[in-house]
């Protein structure tokens, strides 16, 4: 009686070695590999892998902290382009006041004015209100922080917070109200030029907007102190630009 019970079990197991023996033909091609690997101790694989990893790491500079590709340095007047804007920082001026750019100063404050050439490279008009386009793109570095311009105006006709039409270049004055004692003539200032990403709002919001500014380059500019900045011809001018002293590309009157 035990025999018939054991028989199915035996029948299931026993043929296996046979089948294995019957099918060595397709495996013969890699037989040498199998034989070789059988002879190499398993530990060697781990060692070989580790050596390969270390070699690759060493080839890319080892485990030392890799230097991050920092923002590129731009020369004064050099253009930085991204999908949204082309900007070129031209000139930094320190002036007592600059109402033509729409900026008001408290006692003890002066105006830091930055002349920037800007062109909208997008397909829709860009505004220059706080947090938009040029104001986000060119910011003043102050310590470890950056500061957005307080006001923006066109240099030619003094339009406040002008819109940038697609493909139409404009020269703008970015103005910061600053502590009059913190800045002086010939001081080198760093401005950070930032890139933004175009987002298409969905769900609860709508429209497209440029967000998340990321530093892309920096420009170091020496300040020109033009003092009161009053040009003798300014009062006579019929439709004065933002300020003759700021607009001049040659040296302004020393304060």
């Amino acid at each position, binding site marked *: 009686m035990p025999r018939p019970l054991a028989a199915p079990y035996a029948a299931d197991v026993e043929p296996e070695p046979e089948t294995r023996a019957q099918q060595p033909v397709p495996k013969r091609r890699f037989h040498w590999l199998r034989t070789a690997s059988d002879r190499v101790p398993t530990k060697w694989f781990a060692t070989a892998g580790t050596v390969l990893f270390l070699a690759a790491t060493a080839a890319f500079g080892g485990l030392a902290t890799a230097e991050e590709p920092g923002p590129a340095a731009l020369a004064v007047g050099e253009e930085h382009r991204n999908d949204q804007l082309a900007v070129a920082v031209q000139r930094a001026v320190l002036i007592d006041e600059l109402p033509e750019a729409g900026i008001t100063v408290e006692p003890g404050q002066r105006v830091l004015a930055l002349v920037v050439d800007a062109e909208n490279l997008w397909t829709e008009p860009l505004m220059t209100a706080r947090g938009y386009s040029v104001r986000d793109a060119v910011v003043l570095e102050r310590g470890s922080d950056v500061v957005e311009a307080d006001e923006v105006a066109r240099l030619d006709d003094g339009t406040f917070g002008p819109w940038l*039409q697609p493909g139409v270049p404009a020269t703008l004055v970015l103005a910061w109200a600053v502590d009059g004692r913190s800045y002086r003539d010939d001081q080198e200032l760093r401005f950070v030029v930032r890139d933004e990403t175009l987002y298409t709002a969905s769900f609860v919001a*709508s429209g497209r907007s440029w967000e998340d500014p990321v530093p892309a380059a920096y420009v170091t500019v020496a300040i020109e102190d033009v003092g009161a900045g009053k040009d003798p011809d300014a009062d006579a001018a019929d439709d004065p630009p933002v300020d003759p002293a700021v607009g001049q590309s040659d040296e302004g009157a020393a304060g």
Partner: protein
Amino acid sequence: MTRRWVPAVAGAALVAAAWGVTAVTPAEDSAEQPFVVAAPVGMRAEGRNLALTVTGVRAADAVVNEGWRAEGEWVVVDVESEATRMETGTLLQFVTLRLGGRTYRASERPPDSMFGHPLSVGLPSAGSVAFELPEGALDAGAAGVPDELVLRFGLNLDDRLDSVLETRVPLDDLEHVGEAEIAPVDWAGS
């Protein structure tokens, strides 16, 4: 055996159908597109609380307005416009020009233009709006430049689900002048 191709064909047909559905699905924002009213040059068009007639369109190398002057590639559009229902908050604030895949906004630079001007009910104002375009934007035959300007007028900065009046101006019909005046705003007919 003969049925083996059935799932393959059915699968391919479903993929094609899915592609078709994707292709014909309207864009997400199409449900809130503005209602466009045609406003041919010289014809009065009416939208929500806005009536407007484009009385002239011309291109200029320089524009003047109340002592202000600017050079460049400009398009000056003369309009007559009034509100039809109410005056509170009724400003001609949405004025755009579309050309070659780009959208321009009427320039805020001229001191006295119809752009952003308040509109009176029943008493039309006349004036101009001006657009500043890149150099060469109007050159006929330039690559990628379509043959017409598309002007749009509305009361709301946000044109979604509002009516906008649309004027199409073929580039060939555009008169080119050296210097154009952006007419200061006045009552129509005076």
